[in-house]
C-alpha cells in the first residue's frame, strides 16, 4: 500500500539506534530517548500482565453469585491491586513514556529530549516505585481500593498499605519528570521552521498531558505522603478520631486523580489525531480547534474533581458547581470527535489495523464519554454511584479509549521503532477480537450497574449472574485480543517485512528518518517549510502528482 515514489526498501539501514552499541550496560545506562522508550515498553507491559492477572481473578471469581473462588478479604485485594497496577503503572505511563518518549524529539526535529539523563532517571524512579508496589503485593497485597480512602487505609486496614502508598508516591515523580521534559522540549528544541502551528497534534496532546502531570501529580504526592505519615507516625489530618476529616483526603486525592484520567486519555487522542488524517489521506479538520481542545481539556479537567464525591455529604452548592463544570469539560472532547469525523468526510479511507483501532477508539470513547455525563448529573449519580455503571464507564474510556489508542499507536509506529512491518491480516483479526471481547466484557456492566449491582462487592444477588458470566466470557476473548498483538508484534520486530522510512505514507517529521532511526535521529537538522497533515504538497514523500523536487532537507546554520 506504499505509494512513495522510491523503490521498495529491502534491508534495514546499516547503523541505527538498536545496533549502535551492544550490551546490557548500554541499555541500562542509555540516554537515548528511543532506547528509554523501549525500556518503558518492557516495564509497562510487565505491569500490564500483573494488572491483567488481577483482572482475571476478579472475573473468574464473579462468575458465581456466592463467590466460590476467593474470600471477601482476598477479593478486596484483587480489585485494589488491579486498579493500582493498571492506573499508576500501566495507563499513566503507557503512551507518554513509550510513544511520547520515542516520537516527540523526532516529531519536533530534535536530536533528543531536553534532559536525556532526567529521562533515564524518570525510568529508574518508575522501576523503584514499581518495586515498592510489588513488595506490597508479595507482603499480602492492599485491600483499600485504589482510591486509598481514609481512615480505612491509614488506620484500620491490616494490609500492606505503606509500601504501596510509597510506591505510588515515588512513581509520581517519574510522571512529573517526564512531563517536565516534554514541556521544555516542545518550547526550546523545535527545529528551524517548526512553528507551534506546524506541530503534529500528537505533540499538542502530549504538551497538554504534561501540563496536567506538572500541576496535578505533586498534589497526589503530598496527599499520599500525608496518608503514609498518618499510617506510620499517627499524624491525624484524615482521621476523625483525632478530629481529622476523611473528606479532606478525598478532595486532595481527586484533585489529582481526576486530571489523571486526562493524562490517560489525551495522549490516546493525540494518537488518534495522527491516525485519522493518515488513513483518510486528508488534512485534519480544524487543526487549531483540535489543538486548543487538548489544552482546554487539560485546564477544565482540573475544575471537576468533586464529581467523584457527590455522595459524601459535601456541600450541595459545591456539587452543583462541579456538576456544571463536568458538563463543560465534555465540550472540548466532543469538538475533537466532531473534527475527526469531519476529517473522514471526503477522505480516501483505508482500513489498516491502526485505523481500525482509531475507529474503535472513537466509538467506544463516545459511549464512555456520554456515560460520564450521565454520572455527572447529580440525580442520576445518586443511584449509580459505586455501582458497575461507573466501572463500565471508566473501562470504556480507559480500555476502549486509552488502550485502543495505545495499540493503534504501537501498530502505526512499529515500523518506525523496529524497521519492520507487522503482519496485517492477523493484526486486523486481533483488533476485531479485541473489540468484540471488550464490548462483551463491559457492556453488560452498564446494565448491571443500572440494575443496582454495587462495585467492589465479592458477592451479588443471583439474578445478576447472567450478566456477570457474559462479562467474564468477554474478558477471556479480550485477553486473546491482547495476547495476539504481543506475540505477532514481537515476532514482527525480528522477522517482519522491512518497512522502509515511510510505509504508510504519513506526513510527520518522524517519517523522514530511516526506520529504525539513527541514534542522533537526523543526520542533518531538518528545516520545516510545510504545514502538518498536508497530503497534497509533499513531493519529498511522493505525495504530489510530480516527481520529488529539490533536496529533501536543507542544512541548517551551524549544522553538523
Amino acid at each position, binding site marked *: 500500500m506504499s505509494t512513495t515514489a522510491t523503490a521498495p526498501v529491502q534491508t534495514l539501514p546499516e547503523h541505527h539506534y538498536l545496533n549502535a552499541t551492544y550490551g546490557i550496560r548500554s541499555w541500562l545506562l542509555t540516554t537515548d530517548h528511543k532506547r528509554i522508550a523501549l525500556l518503558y515498553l518492557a516495564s509497562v507491559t510487565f505491569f500490564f500482565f500483573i494488572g491483567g492477572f488481577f483482572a482475571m481473578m476478579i472475573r473468574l471469581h464473579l462468575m458465581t453469585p456466592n463467590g466460590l473462588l476467593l474470600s471477601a478479604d482476598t477479593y478486596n485485594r484483587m480489585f485494589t491491586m488491579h486498579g493500582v497496577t493498571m492506573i499508576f503503572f500501566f495507563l499513566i505511563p503507557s503512551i507518554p513514556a513509550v510513544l511520547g518518549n520515542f516520537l516527540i524529539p523526532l516529531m519536533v526535529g530534535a536530536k533528543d529530549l531536553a534532559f536525556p539523563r532526567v529521562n533515564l532517571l524518570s525510568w529508574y524512579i518508575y522501576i523503584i516505585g514499581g518495586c515498592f508496589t510489588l513488595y506490597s503485593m508479595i507482603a499480602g497485597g492492599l485491600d483499600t481500593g485504589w482510591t486509598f480512602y481514609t481512615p480505612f487505609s491509614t488506620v484500620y486496614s491490616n494490609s500492606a498499605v505503606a509500601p504501596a502508598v510509597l510506591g505510588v508516591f515515588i512513581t509520581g515523580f517519574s510522571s512529573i519528570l517526564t512531563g517536565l521534559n516534554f514541556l521544555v522540549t516542545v*518550547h*526550546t528544541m*523545535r527545529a528551524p521552521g517548526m*512553528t507551534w502551528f506546524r506541530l503534529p497534534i500528537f505533540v499538542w496532546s502530549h504538551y497538554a498531558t504534561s501540563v496536567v502531570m506538572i*500541576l496535578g501529580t505533586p*498534589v497526589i504526592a503530598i496527599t499520599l505522603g500525608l496518608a503514609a505519615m498518618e499510617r506510620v507516625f499517627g499524624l491525624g489530618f484524615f482521621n*476523625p*478520631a483525632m*478530629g481529622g*476529616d476523611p*473528606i*479532606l483526603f478525598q*478532595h*486532595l486525592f481527586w*484533585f489529582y486523580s481526576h486530571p489523571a484520567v486526562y493524562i490517560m486519555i489525551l495522549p490516546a487522542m493525540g494518537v488518534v489525531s495522527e491516525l485519522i488524517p493518515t488513513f483518510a489521506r486528508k488534512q485534519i479538520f480544524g487543526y487549531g480547534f483540535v489543538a486548543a481542545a487538548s489544552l482546554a481539556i487539560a485546564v477544565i479537567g*482540573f*475544575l471537576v474533581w*468533586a464529581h467523584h464525591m457527590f455522595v459524601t455529604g*459535601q*456541600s*450541595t*452548592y*459545591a456539587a452543583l*458547581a462541579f456538576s456544571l463544570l463536568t458538563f463543560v469539560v465534555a465540550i472540548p472532547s466532543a469538538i475533537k470527535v466532531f473534527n475527526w469525523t469531519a476529517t473522514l468526510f471526503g477522505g480516501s479511507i483505508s482500513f489498516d489495523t491502526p485505523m481500525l483501532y482509531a475507529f474503535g477508539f472513537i466509538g467506544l470513547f463516545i459511549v464512555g464519554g456520554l456515560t460520564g455525563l450521565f454520572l455527572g448529573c447529580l440525580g442520576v449519580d445518586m443511584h449509580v454511584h459505586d455501582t458497575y455503571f461507573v466501572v463500565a464507564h471508566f473501562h470504556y474510556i480507559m480500555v476502549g479509549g486509552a488502550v485502543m489508542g495505545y495499540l493503534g499507536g504501537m501498530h502505526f509506529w512499529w515500523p518506525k521503532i523496529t524497521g519492520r512491518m507487522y503482519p496485517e491480516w492477523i493484526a486486523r483479526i486481533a483488533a476485531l477480537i479485541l473489540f468484540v471481547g471488550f464490548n462483551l466484557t463491559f457492556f453488560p456492566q452498564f446494565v448491571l450497574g443500572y440494575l443496582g449491582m454495587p462495585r467492589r462487592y465479592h458477592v451479588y444477588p443471583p439474578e445478576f449472574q447472567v450478566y456477570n458470566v457474559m462479562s467474564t466470557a468477554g474478558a477471556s476473548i479480550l485477553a486473546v485480543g491482547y495476547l495476539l498483538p504481543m506475540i505477532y508484534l514481537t515476532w514482527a520486530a525480528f522477522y517482519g517485512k522491512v518497512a522502509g522510512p515511510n510505509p504508510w505514507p504519513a506526513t510527520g517529521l518522524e517519517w523522514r528518518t530511516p526506520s529504525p532511526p539513527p541514534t542522533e535521529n537526523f543526520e542533518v537538522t531538518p528545516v520545516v517549510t510545510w504545514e502538518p497533515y498536508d497530503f497534497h504538497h509533499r513531493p519529498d514523500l511522493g505525495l504530489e502528482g510530480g516527481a520529488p523536487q529539490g533536496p529533501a532537507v536543507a542544512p541548517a546554520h551551524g549544522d553538523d
Partner: protein
Amino acid sequence: MSENEHTNHIVQPGTYTAIILTLLTLTALTVAAAYVNLGPFNIVVALAIATIKATLVVLFFMHAKFVPRRTQLIIISGVFWLIILLFMTLSDYVTRVDYRGVRFPISQNFSAGLPPRA
C-alpha cells in the same frame, strides 16, 4: 524560535540591598501586626504581607521581572492553580448546610458531632 530566558539584564547589588531591607522591614511589620487584635483580619494582614514579601523575592531575587513573557505565564499559572486548589475545596466547606438548612460554620468541631436539634 527559542525565546531568550535571559535578556542580558543584570540586576545590580543596589537593587538587591533595597529589596532585602524592605523584606526585613516587612518581617518586623508582620510580627508587630500579630500583637494587635484585628479579629478576623489578622490572617488577612499576615498573608498580605507574606505575599508582598514573596512577590519581591520572585520579581527581583529570582529576576522574574526580567524574564520573557512565557516564563512569567508559567509562574502565574502555578500560583493560579494553587488558588484553584484552595478556593474550590473551600467552596465545599464554606457552603455546607445541615439538615435544618442551617450553614455549618467552618469552625465546626467535628468530634463534637452535629449541633442538637433546635
